[in-house]
């Protein structure tokens, strides 16, 4: 009996100990090395980051960098890490998240570092990209690379339809799409469509801006129920109801460039990453790129990626050393090799002569009329907007009523305030009433 008691207490203690160890083990890190994280959108990105760290460590012998990539659900994990103060010292970030994270007060302002670093040359960055990381007058991150959206088109299909170049206006766009919609094997079923539209909001926004419409106006008021916004969506929806445009799922594709690569559509809109995708997956499908067709004005959207330093870091100075290298001219040249983004620094663009690259210069020039994918609204507002777009493009819902209903829902949920703080204070005052 006593043996059993002894045994059980031991095993109990052992299990508790193991549990404790496993719990604390999670928090155990090499306190000397600096932690860096990022998402991995293609294998080449990981290889480049590792080679980048090697170069960095050779130059800075006392500054080992520990790379901890997050392979899936990047923002889910990063947000939790930021909230609990366990995020790495340098984090990759899409500019999209800056308003939210500044609102949550988890990022370190970088202005002092930049000011005290004469060799960094922040004026070398494309101004629009740097601005994307600035909020309330302070800088919370630095851009690494970006991509604009452009029009991919299949020159072989264009030639067969007797079309020489890419459409330049909405009218040409719709007309070309009509001429490119064909039954190629004569069985009475259309198997090649003019255009594949992606249902994500980012892909409709350029059309809204081209039509001088706004999602939220300069005063932060919802403008998505106004005629300019509605008409842009009507234009896209009409192409679909006319049978000259499809959604990716209509032709069994995973996303719009998958449909394009399979030769089911002649035109699709995407970023520079799609060129990489075409090379890796559909090398035999010919493609060319052109600026997006213009409406009342030319417009595109830019996705900007960069790096930031969480406020909770214990090594802000060391983190800056890594950050300045990652976003410096040398880092920029390394990133450019990945082929998924364009360098954020003008000097790198110049040195690499990207203006002469027939593919990349289209993305480059689109930046002149592009706006950054970033809104100062609640995530829930964007998700509700996305649902409304799904209703419009997937079920053919009438646009004006759908958007009016969206506005009513958001107003009813009082979701249209710019940031969480004003919303929270309102909640509190209501609770105390």
């Amino acid at each position: 009996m006593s043996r059993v008691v002894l045994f059980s207490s031991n095993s109990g203690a052992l299990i508790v100990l193991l549990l404790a160890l496993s719990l604390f083990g999670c928090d155990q890190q090499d306190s000397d090395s600096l932690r860096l994280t990022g998402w991995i959108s293609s294998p080449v990105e990981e290889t480049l980051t590792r080679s980048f760290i090697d170069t960095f460590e050779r130059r800075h012998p006392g500054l080992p960098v520990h790379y901890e990539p997050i392979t899936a659900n990047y923002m889910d994990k990063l947000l939790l890490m930021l909230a609990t103060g366990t995020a790495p010292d340098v984090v990759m970030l899409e500019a999209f998240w800056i308003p939210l994270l500044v609102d949550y007060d988890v990022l370190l302002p970088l202005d002092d570092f930049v000011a005290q670093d004469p060799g960094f040359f922040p004026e070398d960055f494309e101004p629009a990209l740097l601005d994307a990381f600035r909020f309330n007058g302070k800088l919370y991150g630095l851009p690494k690379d970006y991509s604009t959206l452009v029009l991919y088109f299949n020159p072989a299909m264009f030639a067969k339809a007797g079309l020489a170049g890419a459409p330049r206006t909405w009218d040409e766009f719709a007309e070309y799409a009509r001429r490119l919609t064909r039954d190629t094997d004569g069985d009475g079923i259309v198997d090649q469509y003019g255009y594949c539209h992606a249902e994500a909001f980012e892909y409709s926004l350029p059309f809204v801006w081209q039509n001088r419409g706004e999602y939220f106006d300069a005063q932060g008021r919802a403008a998505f129920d106004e005629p300019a916004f509605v008409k842009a969506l009507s234009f896209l929806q009409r192409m679909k109801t006319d049978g000259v445009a499809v959604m990716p799922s209509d032709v069994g594709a995973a996303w719009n460039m998958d449909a394009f690569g399979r030769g089911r559509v002649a035109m699709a809109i995407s970023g520079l990453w799609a060129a990489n995708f075409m090379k890796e997956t559909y090398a035999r499908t010919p493609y060319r790129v052109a600026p997006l067709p213009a409406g009342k004005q030319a417009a595109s959207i830019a996705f900007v990626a960069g790096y930031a330093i969480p406020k909770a870091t214990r090594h802000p100075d060391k983190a800056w050393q890594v950050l300045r290298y990652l976003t410096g001219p040398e880092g920029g040249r390394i990133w450019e090799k990945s082929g998924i983004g364009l360098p954020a620094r003008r000097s790198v663009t110049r040195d690499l002569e990207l203006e002469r690259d027939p593919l990349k210069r289209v993305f480059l020039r689109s930046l002149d009329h592009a706006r950054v994918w970033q809104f100062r609204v609640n995530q829930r507002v964007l998700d509700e907007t996305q649902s409304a777009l799904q209703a419009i493009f997937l079920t053919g819902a009438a646009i004006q009523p759908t958007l009016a209903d969206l506005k009513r829902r958001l107003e009813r949920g009082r979701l249209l305030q710019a940031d969480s703080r004003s919303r929270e204070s309102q909640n509190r005052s209501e609770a105390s009433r």
Partner: protein
Amino acid sequence: MPNSRRSGTTERYREAVSAYFFLLPSLVVLSLFVFGPLVFILAVAFFDWNLFRPEQHFLGAANFVELAGDELFFTALRNTAVYALGVVPIQTLLALLLALAVNQNIPARGFFRAAFYIPAITSSVVTSIIFLWIYSKPGLLNYVLSWFGIVGPDWIGSPKYALGAIMALNVWSTSGYFMVAFLAGLQAIPVSLYEAARIDGASSWGRFRHVTVPGLKPTLFFVVTLGIIGTFQVFDQIYMMSAGGPVNATTTLSYFIYISAFRYFRFGYAAAAAVVLFAIILLVTRVQQKIARPEAP
């Protein structure tokens, strides 16, 4: 005599001590990860709880008031109700039929029993991905439908069919599990009852109606209760396959709780929704207990 009694109490005392030692690890783990959070969530529901702030604000019932005006919450409630009402009866009936079938003396009985059970022990992430392929526009299901000249939709991409498609997956994956429960219930019914019924001249339907069904009552209660709880908590398939979309067609209550907490970082609001879910499950189980009180066979 008194001596031996005293030694008896010491013995019992020592036994209790050693029993608690054995239980300690599980008790620690359970209270740390199950009971603790369970009680804690009741507190969080009354706060504006944001991980990004050091201090949390007490809101009173404001989270519940806001839930009452949140259309997405009601969409989630409706989807969850449709889900439970659709899945539970079908999966229960199917499980019962499967159990009756593999309880017969059919050839390769072991094979069928294992085959029906495999979906239950396969990771839900894996089955979700497989069904994404089956349900896709050029997928297996539409291929089969094309034999009959039917052009199938993109099942998960369509607001009309997405929820039903995921419900079908759920029926498929859990029926085998509940089949085993029914099988155990069937085998617990004494053969003598069937013999007595046969001697009394009961037909096979009569034997099923008056011996099998009453004998399975406790199992039925177990299966329906677990089925209801399971369907109210459906999450992994939704997260993997449709992310609540399209047009919120597959946003269920547990998915709503998840996005409120981990996407919108409103832990208090999510906790309030979780408390509502808890209350619903409690109520439904109570009602069901009243209707079908479990009895010993």
